[in-house]
């Protein structure tokens, strides 16, 4: 009897020993654990912390009875029902939702139609058109706001006159110069790219045999579109929708440039000004409301996607038969070229032109100068600011931007690949599911809200970490965190394509986990790695919303510098900086696409 129990005891102690050994000798467990810890510190902890903050008195509340740190509902009550709630919360929220809804509808439709034209019809010059169509993705969204101002500015609000006023001597009405209409139009001209890329990718994987078999069965072209093509691209449309709406809800630059001059606020600009004007807690509350809003929209969308899940579309022959446009060809071509001209070419031309105008708004040739590019400081022009290539502030901001973008994109791409590996290889493990969810979380948090959270966190010590405010590290960290969902998506879709047996073959051959990862998985996922890299690089290089509240004079980035210059009224220098940003992005994009065989539509797909 005792012998028996002794044996049992030995057995279970063996089991525990073996379980521990299995855990510690398997790098997948250890890496999973590390990732969960990192994501918790970088995402979950800040979220909780900020939520708690909004229920406490802060040192900035000038209320006699307030003791900083004590519990209170004061901030929530003032924000939601107080006297200022209308201008602080409800008006900006209504504006934000109106903008989000309008932009989503317009951008989705536009992108889907263009994608169909380019992938499914015999429209000529597809390659060039395709490239021109995605060009806006490489522009900062707020750059179009600059261009809008160049054209539609009026001297009642904006100081110097815009192009229209210059040509016709009458200023456009305020509603066309500033506010809702220009914000919606500029955002649409930017975000349609997501719908174009995702719907285009889906369309090109649908085998035309699916459509043909419907035709053979007697369905008309219109019926085929409605019954076969549309349902198959629906998931792509829904992903594009959440991508566009979450981006436009959180968008800061565009409503700041086009809304603030006429006191038209969105939630994001209201967060910015609350925090800037000494009401940080209200700013945090607005951030939380914005996150909840975005999360709710995405949640309901996800439910729709998972109900209609067509993961693997397409037969083997994906060579789709092109639809002949016939007499519509001219019309379609004119439309497409005109569109590309308006959203991609004209803005860049106007931007460059404006950098050459000595006096803003004077389009005569005699007014042209290179001063804002290469001029030395001249106290008579722009308060003595020297041209961008001679300006040490701009150059150091450029250096910071490049450092941040490169570091963040390399880190994020690697992280995305490792997470993708963990998530696809040990799909059933709880830890993998957790990692999958956690790395998706930043998607729900609009940039300006994440920025607000990091601002509150970075000025104090967190756990054992040093104070990060004023370092490049915090800017890199927030960029990696914000871009993680995209990098993870790129990583996951690559890892799915690499058959598990390739790794198992190496495992049986005696290769350790690190050997396997670096000799087998990494080389095979090169294109996915580059895809992750370029997606993050582009975003980081043009990022404004995310870092505008976190930069300090020494860590200023080119985008933040541009924002400052525009606000202070030096549009030529601001525009020259934007031109540099766009130039760098386009060059890096072309190089990566040519050498890395990247496919950005793999990474940006919204949702999961």
């Amino acid at each position: 009897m005792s012998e028996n129990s002794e044996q049992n005891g030995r057995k279970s102690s063996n089991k525990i020993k073996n379980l521990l050994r299995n855990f510690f000798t398997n790098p997948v467990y250890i890496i999973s654990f590390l990732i969960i810890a990192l994501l918790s510190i970088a995402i979950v902890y800040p979220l909780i912390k900020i939520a708690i903050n909004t229920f406490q008195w802060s040192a900035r509340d000038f209320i006699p009875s307030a003791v900083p740190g004590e519990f209170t509902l004061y901030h929530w009550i003032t924000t939601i029902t107080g006297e200022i709630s209308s201008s602080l919360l409800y008006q900006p929220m209504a504006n934000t939702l109106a903008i989000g809804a309008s932009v989503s509808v317009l951008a989705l439709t536009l992108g889907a139609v263009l994608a169909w034209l380019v992938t499914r019809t015999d429209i000529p010059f597809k390659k060039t058109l395709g490239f021109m169509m995605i060009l806006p993705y490489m522009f900062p969204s707020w750059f179009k706001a600059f261009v809008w101002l160049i054209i539609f500015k009026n001297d009642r609000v904006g100081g110097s006159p815009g192009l229209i006023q210059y040509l016709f001597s009458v200023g456009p009405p305020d509603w066309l110069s500033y506010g809702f209409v220009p914000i919606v139009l500029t955002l649409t001209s930017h975000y349609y790219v997501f719908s174009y890329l995702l719907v285009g990718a889906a369309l090109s994987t649908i085998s035309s045999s699916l459509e043909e078999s419907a035709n053979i069965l007697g369905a008309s072209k219109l019926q085929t579109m409605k019954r076969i093509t549309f349902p198959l691209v629906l998931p792509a449309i829904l992903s594009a929708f959440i991508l566009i709406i979450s981006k436009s809800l959180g968008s800061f630059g565009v409503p700041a440039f086009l809304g603030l001059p006429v006191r038209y606020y969105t939630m994001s600009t209201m967060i910015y000004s609350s925090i800037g004007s000494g009401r940080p807690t209200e700013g945090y509350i607005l951030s939380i409301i914005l996150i909840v809003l975005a999360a709710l929209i995405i949640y309901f969308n996800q439910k729709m996607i998972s109900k209609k899940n067509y993961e693997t579309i397409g037969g083997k022959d994906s060579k789709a038969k092109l639809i002949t446009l016939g007499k519509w060809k001219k019309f379609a071509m004119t439309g497409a070229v005109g569109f590309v001209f308006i959203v991609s070419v004209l803005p860049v031309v106007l931007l460059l032109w404006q950098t050459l105008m000595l006096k803003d708004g004077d389009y005569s040739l005699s007014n042209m100068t290179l001063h804002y590019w290469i001029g030395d400081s001249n106290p008579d022009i722009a308060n003595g600011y020297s041209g961008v290539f001679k300006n040490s502030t701009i150059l150091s901001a450029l250096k910071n931007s490049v450092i941040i973008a490169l570091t963040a994109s390399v880190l994020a791409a690697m992280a995305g690949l490792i997470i993708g590996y963990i998530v696809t290889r040990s799909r059933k493990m709880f830890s993998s599911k957790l990692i999958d969810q956690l790395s998706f979380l930043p998607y729900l948090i609009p940039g300006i809200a994440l920025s607000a959270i990091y601002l509150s966190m970075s000025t104090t010590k967190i756990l054992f970490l040093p104070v990060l405010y004023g370092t490049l590290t915090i800017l890199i960290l927030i960029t990696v965190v914000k871009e993680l969902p995209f990098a993870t998506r790129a990583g996951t879709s690559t890892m799915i394509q690499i058959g598990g047996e390739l790794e198992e073959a190496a495992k049986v051959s005696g290769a350790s986990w690190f050997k396997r990862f670096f000799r087998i998985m990494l080389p095979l996922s090169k294109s996915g790695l580059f895809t992750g890299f370029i997606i993050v690089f582009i975003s980081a290089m043009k990022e404004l919303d995310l870092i505008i509240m976190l930069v300090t004079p020494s860590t200023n980035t080119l985008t933040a510098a541009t924002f400052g210059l525009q606000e202070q009224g030096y549009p030529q220098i601001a525009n020259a900086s934007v031109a540099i940003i766009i130039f760098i992005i386009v060059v890096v994009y072309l190089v990566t696409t040519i050498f890395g065989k990247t496919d950005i539509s793999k990474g940006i797909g919204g949702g999961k």
Partner: protein
Amino acid sequence: MSGIELANVNKYFDKNHVLKNVNLKIEDGEFMTLLGPSGCGKTTTLRIISGLEDPEIGLLTIGGKNIVNGEDKFYTPPSKRGLNLVFQSYALWPHMTVFENVSFGLEQKKMKKAEIRLKVEDSLQRMQIKNLMNRYPSELSGGQQQRVAIARAIVTEPKVLLLDEPLSNLDAKLRIEMRTELKRLHRDLKTTIVYVTHDQEEALTLSTRISVFFDGEIVQSDTPQKLYRAPNDLRVAKFIGNPTINLIEETCSYKNNQLIINSILGDFFADGDENVSDNITLSVKPEDIKIYSEPIGNGVEAQVYSVLPAGSETLIQLRIGDQLLTAKEIGEVNYPLDSKVWITFSFNKINVYDNKTGKLIAKEVEEQTKKAQFA
């Protein structure tokens, strides 16, 4: 010293019980084939032996050494089991040349460069693909890729070689060629081979022993001859043999410690006990049926239903009442459709199965008339 023993191995994927109490003993140097229909757990068994899958319950020893103890959660890593595996998909690394693919395993053993080169060339030579050394897998045909996969697995001189349907992606001709080579390889290397296939012909040709799986259980482990002659289960009988075996459902009675069977093929006795249900199935192999155009002594009358020539052999479908039977004759033969023929077969090639359990209850039965003489 590389016999393999699986004892009471059970594997679950979530709630799905995929392997149920698998017991299997593979002797040193054996060519053991795991045979069975799709989804019956052959690959899973192979992956458990290789260590790519861990069973929840059960023991595994290789060469007498404890490798897996499910209850203790003790799992030796694959690299420490002294085996190698050829995947059904080949799983060649597309970014490495043939040479690099094959040398990878040796590099993990920290061998010297010169020695690696020698061994790689030797194993490529053995598979007759030394001239392809610097190509990438995408530049090879399916058969060549197959050879690389095998070369990669044997280069480390594993004591146990595991092959998962290695020939299933090849065309019919190449498959026959590779069978010969695999057989030679087994003789030359003298390793224990565990081979997975759902092609019964391949199994019968190659193996020293075959284990037949159904629904995660081993139903029979036997030499190819025994398996072919006396499948111990109806499912095995249906699975083995091409064209499929003739099965005839009948009833029987029990008398004097013997089963008395009255069938369309005649009346006969079989050894058996009372526990057997009244419903039984007789099996006759198509090649054991002889056809005569003229009436013959103890021949059974039948009608020609259709004739299916297939080059070297001809299949003839016959009808006795409602029962359809297939017979196989070597060479080209022809019978007019619906004509009357007479068939004979030797009783000692008939097997009897119990319908309720599906188990073999009697083999090599005796004709009643003969027995009757003794009675």
